[in-house]
């Protein structure tokens, strides 16, 4: 049963990597998460199996679908990378080595502490980990707010001037007839764009 799950996981991982459309790749990733959760449950890690299922097959999949809807699903063709195959083969050989390691007589060190249940271990021994996770979560939320807020739009426009200027290289015919005192709004109000339009207007006046 475990071998079957492992083979299916590898197949879905390969499909997720090779999928042409991003939505299809996301669905294969959700399948991989569900198979991993089942495998972890069979190994005895019940709590992590449940968390992996809800986070991997639920949260991450929904978020990916959101973002793909926002940015658009561009079909990409995958090419066979020779060096990639070599890496895969090399790691497969390493995996086989790990498989036959017990017969090679490699001793594994054993820990001396007595095992306890998940709740005791998490809250009593790894409490600092939980605190670090909380800090990580808050840092992540602040990071998202900083990235997606309207203020960030203006700041990023000043940080990446080449991106905004490149799209204004050719004067938009809509703005060629700017009259004095006419108000402009949004990105067209940035000082770089106004400088370009003023320059272009002066040049056109000189010519005519």
């Amino acid at each position, binding site marked *: 049963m475990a071998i079957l799950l492992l083979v299916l996981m*590898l197949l879905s991982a390969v499909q997720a990597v090779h999928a042409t459309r991003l939505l299809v790749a996301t669905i294969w990733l959700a399948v991989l998460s569900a198979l991993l959760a089942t495998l972890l449950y069979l190994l005895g890690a019940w709590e992590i199996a449940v968390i992996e299922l809800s986070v991997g097959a639920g949260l991450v999949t929904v978020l990916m679908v959101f973002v793909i809807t926002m940015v658009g699903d561009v079909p990409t063709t995958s090419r066979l990378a020779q060096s990639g195959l070599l890496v*895969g083969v090399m790691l497969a050989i390493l995996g086989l080595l790990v498989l036959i390691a017990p017969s090679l007589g490699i001793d594994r060190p054993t820990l001396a502490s007595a095992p306890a249940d998940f709740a005791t271990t*998490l809250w009593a021994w790894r409490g600092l980990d939980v605190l670090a996770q909380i800090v*990580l979560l808050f840092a992540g939320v602040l990071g998202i707010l900083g990235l997606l807020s309207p203020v960030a739009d203006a700041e990023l426009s000043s940080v990446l001037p080449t991106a905004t200027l490149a799209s204004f290289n050719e004067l938009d015919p809509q703005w060629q007839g700017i009259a004095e005192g006419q108000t402009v709004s949004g990105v067209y109000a940035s000082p770089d764009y106004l400088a370009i339009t003023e320059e272009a207007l002066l040049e056109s006046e000189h010519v005519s």
Partner: protein
Amino acid sequence: MNDLSMMFAGSWLLLGVGLYGLMLAKHLLKLMIVLQVLVKAALLALISAAYLQGQGSLGQSLALTVIVADTLAAVIGLALAVQLKARMGTLMLDEMLQGEG
């Protein structure tokens, strides 16, 4: 050779698939998906190694931190992708690198 050793070896194969995907990925969101595959391989290795040692609950506590950190990294990567699409107009890695040159 029991199931746990096989799972530990299987995590290596999943890592190989992830690294292969890392070389194939041309779109930023595909890169995010491949990152998730790589972290799942690490998670499987962590849990199976912990159970091989008889320290299952310790492995699960560490795996919880890994899941939280990986989800956060994916979420922030997706937010970055949204902003990059708005700024650069494209998410193909080749085109984004060409724009800087």
